[in-house]
């Protein structure tokens, strides 16, 4: 009897996990922070999110169409980039700002370097830094309850006191998605539990940053200043950065040891930028610089293969 069965090289089974599933899970994990952002900042935030996500998807599809490439918007990576970028923007930015940001993220950082998996830095963060430099005023003016105010981190830097509890909950000014530490930690834990991300990067990032802050407090004769520490942990983009940006697969090390080094490096850079830098914020630049060092980190942390250097048993 003749059959027409298919042949291929082994293995003949595949896990169900797909790129699209993974992107979907990260989007789900961002929902608590997204929903809280909309609740906290109102309809402006929602509009900004929608514009950013849509323009990212349109730019990706448009570029791929234009160059005769396979359109890959179904893998949800452009949606995720759009969402991450939106969460990094102030809620009330003019409509053209997220569009320019999306163009930079999708076209310049991602597609020009070869598309998914080829970008040298996190597209959303790259775009945020681009916007920060190009439109500094618009990107650093935060309106909260119709009043233009400073973020708690800026107040902290100016030596003022801050309310740590509202920083944990997120009822403070800031970018759309960065204010609620609790919502972000919740989403981050979901990603760790579902094994989408490795715990190493966020733990070593946040952990080393906290240690540097404590050492700094002690060195400055402030003693163990818990409020200062918590304000630094909950404030600014640390939680969003540590759980969702630094863990971006493409721009973080793939080797287990590399992930630890990467986390430690980000902790150090964030500490230096926040304490000694000109701006109160330091997470975005820390991660971007970290991104650029990934190939180097990977090169020196290639795992030792099984049985390498084994000696004969006599």
């Amino acid at each position, binding site marked *: 009897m003749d059959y027409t069965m298919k042949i291929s090289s082994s293995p003949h089974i595949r896990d169900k996990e797909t790129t699209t599933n993974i992107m979907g899970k990260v989007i789900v994990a961002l929902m608590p922070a997204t929903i809280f952002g909309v609740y906290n900042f109102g309809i402006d935030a929602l509009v900004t999110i929608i514009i950013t996500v849509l323009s990212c998807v349109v730019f990706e599809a448009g570029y791929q169409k234009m160059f005769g490439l396979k359109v890959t918007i179904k893998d949800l990576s452009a949606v995720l980039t759009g969402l991450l970028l939106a969460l990094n923007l102030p809620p009330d930015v003019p409509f053209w700002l997220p569009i320019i940001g999306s163009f930079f993220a999708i076209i310049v950082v991602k597609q020009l370097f070869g598309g998914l998996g080829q970008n040298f830095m996190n597209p959303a963060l790259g775009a945020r830094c681009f916007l920060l430099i190009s439109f500094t005023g618009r990107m650093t003016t935060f309106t909260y309850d119709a009043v233009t105010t400073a973020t708690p981190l800026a107040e902290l830097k100016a030596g003022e006191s801050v309310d740590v509890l509202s920083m944990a909950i997120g009822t403070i000014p800031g970018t759309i998605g960065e204010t609620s530490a609790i919502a972000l930690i919740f989403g981050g834990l979901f990603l760790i539990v579902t094994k989408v991300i490795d715990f190493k990067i966020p733990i070593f990032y946040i952990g080393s940053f906290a240690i540097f802050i404590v050492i700094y407090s002690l060195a400055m004769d402030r003693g163990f200043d818990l409020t200062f520490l918590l304000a630094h942990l909950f404030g600014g983009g640390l939680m969003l950065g540590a759980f969702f940006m630094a863990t971006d697969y493409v721009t973080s090390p793939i080797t287990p040891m590399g992930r630890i080094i990467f986390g430690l490096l980000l902790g150090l850079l964030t500490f230096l930028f926040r304490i000694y830098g000109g701006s109160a914020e330091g997470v975005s630049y820390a991660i971007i610089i970290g991104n650029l060092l990934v190939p180097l980190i990977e090169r020196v942390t290639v795992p030792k*293969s099984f049985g390498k250097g*084994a000696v004969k048993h006599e």
Partner: protein
Amino acid sequence: MGLLTFSGGIHPYDGKELSKDKAITVYLPKGDAVYPLSQHIGAPANPIVKKGDKVLVGQKIAEAGGFVSANIHSGVSGTVKTIEPRMTVSGNKVNSIVIENDGLFEELDFSKNIKPLDEMYREDVKEAIKEAGIVGMGGAGFPTHVKLSPKNEDAIDTIIVNGAECEPYLTSDYRRMLEVPEKIVTGLQIVVNLFDNAKGIIAIEDNKPDAIKKLRELTKDMENITVNAVKTKYPQGAERQLIYANTGRQINSSMLPADAGCIVHNIDTIVAIYNAIIEGRPLYERIVTVTGDAVKDTANFNVRLGTNAQELIDAVGGFNIEDPGKIISGGPMMGKAMFTLDVPMVKGSSALLCFREDIVSAVEPSNCIRCGRCVEVCPGRVMPNQLATLAEHGDIDGFLKYDGMECCECGCCSFVCPAKRHLTQIIAGTRKQVLANRKK
């Protein structure tokens, strides 16, 4: 201490419930029996029969073509029809002895091969194993008598029987352990006694508690044999990983198990050693699991070597679908996809696995997103993503620098890849190329 294991590995759906409760049944072939002269690692065997010769079950029909080679014995009685190239599972035509089966299964008198064990010298035992044509029956087919003749015999301190059966869907070793545990224990004793300093380990994945219990029961008074429960995880039964799990010793691709003081045998190989030494019967049968979602019923057959694959499918009632998507000789992780069922069962055939649909051709590879899952699961602790990229670029030097030759082609990386890249296939291709260049 936790269960014995290694780092990396995966937990695919194991599909064993489809056939694990099916007792081994003897299947006697109806049609011609076909014996490829190369069904082991090493030189092909040389035929010692010619067209028209009458042969009996157990009769030697081809003789080892060198030290690293193996004899071949007939599993049927009948007449030699022809010696010609025939298709094998590997997709190559191999010169084969074809025997017209008379259906009588007249056996040679095996009793004259039997010698009391205590009257046999070690060399006699090895010679008997060699004469019986025994090779590793887990798939690789390395001649057993060669394995049992390491350079430094005193360094061998551990004989491991591989009862892990970590490949999904396979249940032949499991059934052997349940049904003939005493043969496994005796077979292992025979091998252990070949070495001055050796003790025996039977390593079984902990998803087979009844097999572990049975073998522990049988060996409880034996000081030189232990039964180890190893963690259920693919590829626990890979030779290097199994040695590491049981002894903590590591070997790399350029070393032999003997370099770790170990010799590893498949369950069916150990049973074949028992059959050869105690019953005087050469290797002419093995257990083949017929399973998958595309067959009407499943079975664990005791099959005569040379049996046509189609016969085994017919013996379980055929397919439950007009056109099965994929048929695999062996397990789903390392088995070979078959394009025809007109091939004989050989010494290394462990299963016929039939899928209604082929998953591999349904997925489309996309860009690597560098998630690191392949690095996490790789039991060889190499970087499959990196190796595949280097392989695709034809960068052999880079491939070697990143220890590409340490890949054991277990398939874990391809299995977990969310971008569905065929990592194992790409890496295996380059490994083959490197090995071929070395031979030049």
